[in-house]
């Protein structure tokens, strides 16, 4: 059954089956509930790795496509497919879910069953978003995912959880309802919801939108995605949602939910509305750069550790948007890479902040100080993750940011120079907060006897650290699989521009060069996988 045929459907619905199984259990069987959730989400992760077998290095396009008619009038199809870009986002999702389950092992004590059901349902929605090739189906998963996330924040969050949950859901719905109008409008022009078909119509000139229509449609989609990313000035829901969410909620939110926005831009905004994307690029880049600098500056002055990490997300996602709208192969790949890297390192930061919260029940930086003495291991992990987040070479954050800046620089050196400020600022706020939390004298008596990382926490952190390091040094594994599809997006948005050879000294670029269908490269890669 798992022989390719319905792998994507299995990926989407397996967690739902797991959630259904959990619902059958008695509510007070906490131990079994946790183990089943862990087993289901780990199995899902392993399933998702099977997709790697089908990802051909070097050629763009969708793999493992599944197609079935669903609704006849209007023609809505169950159309799934995966390409290099969505492939790793799905794997990121399935990777972070078991991590989140483990992170909630002890900290979730009431309504345990519902919690894990919601976590698995969230996974269903997110994986569905990444795999849908039908606009309607995409919208459906996009909306369905809201409810579990809002409940995760609203039921298991901290003091102002209800406010944060409602704000989160209203912001997202406000964007998505206009996207729905946009989708219907597009349907009206094309008579189909099928993404590849629409792309084909655009390529062959069957569909030609007037500049005004194209811009309005672009905005209808873009605003929905920009809210999700979140792009300045639509970011105000994010700090609230993050601060109030439980640790697992923050990990999923920062790790994968924000990426749905940038993924949507790559998958829909650019290929479907190339002209409007071009005309809007300058403004989008401006907002992205403001987001990068503003997010970093606000993060610097945060007294609340979790809010600091939340604002750092605004800054990092600004890089991603900038990389996308620079329309350059390297920056596009960098954006995809940064999405993955941010998922891992910010996810890890939230996990660490959550571990501190489990011990002291506060996020205030002033409540900590000198923690390196009672808990050296946790401090070491925190430093490692903070360094990866600020972009230390050899770790994952560096690759993405470097590629984005490199690619952007070749198009608009001004954009790149402003954005580079963000790299500096991120070092400031992360190291400064690290210093205030872990170094210096212990000022609060309570902090003196805090326990160091438990075995479970060490497992989580070691896993995250290994992935961080691997992504830093083995980035070619990912970039060579995303290269062709990133180029395909660039080709669609700028058909007039031939392939550009850029400066070497960049892993992604080299991969893109080797890429075109060379069999030996593929076989080398296969062996590398094992």
């Amino acid at each position, binding site marked *: 059954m798992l022989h390719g045929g319905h792998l994507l459907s299995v990926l989407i619905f397996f967690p739902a089956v797991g959630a259904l199984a959990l619902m059958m259990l008695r509510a007070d069987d906490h131990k079994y509930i946790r183990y089943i959730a862990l087993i289901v989400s780990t199995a899902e992760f392993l399933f998702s790795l099977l997709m790697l077998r089908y990802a051909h290095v070097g050629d763009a396009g969708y793999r493992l496509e599944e197609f079935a008619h669903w609704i006849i009038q209007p023609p809505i199809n169950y159309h799934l497919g995966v390409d290099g870009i969505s492939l790793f986002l799905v794997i990121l999702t399935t990777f972070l879910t078991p991590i989140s389950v483990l992170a909630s092992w002890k900290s979730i004590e009431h309504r345990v069953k519902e919690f894990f059901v919601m976590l698995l349902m969230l996974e269903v929605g997110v994986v569905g978003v990444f795999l849908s090739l039908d606009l309607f189906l995409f919208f*459906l998963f996009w909306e369905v995912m809201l409810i579990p996330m809002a409940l995760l924040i609203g039921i298991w969050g901290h003091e102002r959880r209800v406010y944060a*949950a409602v704000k989160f859901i*209203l912001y997202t719905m406000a964007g998505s309802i*206009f996207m729905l109008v946009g989708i*219907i409008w597009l349907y009206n022009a094309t008579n189909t919801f099928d993404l590849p078909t629409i792309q084909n119509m655009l390529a062959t000139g069957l569909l030609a939108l007037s500049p005004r229509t194209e811009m309005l449609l672009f905005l209808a989609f873009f605003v929905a995605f920009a809210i999700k990313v979140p792009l300045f000035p639509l970011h105000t829901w994010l700090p609230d949602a993050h601060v109030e969410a439980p640790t697992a909620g923050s990990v999923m939110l920062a790790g994968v939910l924000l990426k749905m926005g940038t993924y949507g831009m790559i998958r829909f905004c650019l290929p479907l509305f190339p002209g409007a994307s071009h005309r809007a690029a300058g403004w989008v880049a401006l907002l992205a750069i403001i987001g990068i600098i503003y997010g970093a500056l606000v993060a610097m002055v945060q007294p609340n550790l979790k809010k600091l990490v939340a604002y750092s997300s605004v800054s990092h996602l600004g890089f991603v948007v900038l990389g996308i709208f620079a329309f350059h192969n390297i920056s596009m790949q960098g954006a995809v890479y940064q999405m993955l890297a941010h998922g891992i390192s910010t996810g890890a930061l939230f996990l660490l902040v959550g571990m501190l919260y489990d011990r002291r029940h506060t996020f205030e930086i002033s409540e900590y100080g000198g923690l390196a003495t009672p808990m050296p291991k946790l401090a070491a992990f925190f430093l490692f993750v903070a360094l990866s987040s600020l972009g230390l070479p050899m770790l994952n954050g560096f690759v993405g940011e470097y590629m984005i800046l490199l690619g952007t620089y070749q198009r608009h050196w001004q954009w790149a120079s402003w954005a580079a400020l963000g790299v500096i600022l991120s070092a400031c706020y992360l190291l400064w907060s690290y210093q205030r939390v872990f170094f210096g004298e212990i000022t609060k008596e309570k902090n003196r006897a805090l326990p160091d990382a438990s075995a479970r926490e060490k497992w989580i952190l070691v896993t995250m650290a290994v992935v961080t390091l691997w992504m830093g040094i083995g980035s070619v594994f990912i970039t060579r699989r995303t290269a062709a599809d990133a180029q395909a997006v660039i080709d669609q948005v700028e058909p007039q521009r031939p392939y550009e050879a850029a400066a070497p000294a960049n892993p992604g670029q080299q991969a893109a060069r080797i890429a075109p269908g060379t069999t030996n490269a593929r076989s080398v890669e296969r062996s590398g996988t094992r």
Partner: protein
Amino acid sequence: MNSAIPTTADFYRVLPELLWCGFGLLAMFLQPFVRNRHFFTALAFIGTLAGAAGSFLSFRNPGAGFYGLIQADAFSFFFHLLVGTVAVLVVLAAGPYLDRERLPVAEFYALLLFATAGMGVLASAQELLTAFIGLEMSSISSYILAGYRRDSLKSGESAMKYFLLGSFATAFFLYGIALVYGATGTTRLDTMVDADAASTLLKLGLSMILIGLGFKVAAAPFQIWTPDVYEGAPTPVTALFSAGPKAAAFALLLRIFATVPAATHFWFWAFWILAVLTMFAGNLGALVQTNVKRLLAYSSIAHAGYILVAFAAVTSMAKGGRSEAAAAYAAVLFYLLSYALVKLGAFTIVSQLGGTGEKNLSLDDYAGLSQRQPVVAAVLSIYLLSLLGLPVTAGFFGKFYIFKAAVNSHLLWLAVLMAINSIIGAYYYLRVIVLMYMREPSAEAAAVAPVGFPLTVNIVLAVTAIGTILFGVMPNPVINFILQPTLFGR
């Protein structure tokens, strides 16, 4: 058609109405002789179900009946089945309610059956005076049903308001018929095809008909009665009001469009404005409500507004030929179906949780419901999410088809206004879900034992909840049926 004696087929075409009236009369006759309450519930259940089943027979005999007074076609079949199902479910939900409130049963069911028959007439009427009879049958029964809790002041107020304003609206409707007759020399819709659209008299008559029906569907600015009437009426009756008469009145409006081209030319801007006013009146009103019944009443107004958006699309598209308008008709029908299921289920839950004397209707009574009664909270959430229009529920497709109709007919502004309203709506539906899932129950609410849900009520909830999900995942059968080209018989 010219023969003076009605044929057997004619009687088949009104079979549902005959059955509903017959069982209603039977209930009244038996009332002095039978003391057993369950007997009447069973009788009403069989009666409503028989009428709904009878609609299949009338569908087997399509065509104009009784010299063109009524029209049996796929359209009337759809609405007969819809109001019939609504009536069956209201009977099931009302049984435990009437027992709890110690209200007489036989009269209640008789009135319910008469009201249903009236709605049936409205759905198949092809002649304005026949429609008027249907409207009066359903309205007069509704007035009495609204005041059925005689010892409650609110119920009395509800009935009085409904009656006074309702008869005023009916007068408009009747006067409109008279003017239309004056302009065209006929009251039969199918003979108005060639009516002169420029005639002032016809315009005046049509606008009065629109006012009369606008009242029945609670379109702003004729919506003032809705919250008070919905709040005061016994909750199962409120469930009926929100699902049945509204669907029937919309059915008549649709039929007028489908048969009289003059109406479509004239009504476009009227519907545009009505739709916008109604959506905003409903949604903004609902934002500040603290009583669940009033909240749902305002939400009813808002949803009438969404349906009116589809009407604006119908009028806009009908100019371009009927084939294009079919999608907009389908949007209305599907929306009414999804909406009826959801409102019925939601009011049933409200009715059951209200407790004796309908005391617990405040939103605060729903705080922490998910911990006290998780299944009820989950089912109510399904309804609310469907009202909100979230995917995998029927409400989503309903809204989706209306959006599509609006965009198809280039009513982008209307679509955008509807989108804005959907977001306002999301806020107050979510507020209820937030209360149920994210707040702790008040001390006294936590002390109360969970409210029992009898079997019949559970059946209502199961049917409506499963229907909501089913039509949200698999709308194909319904859509195929209502998109058929012969929806209106021709």
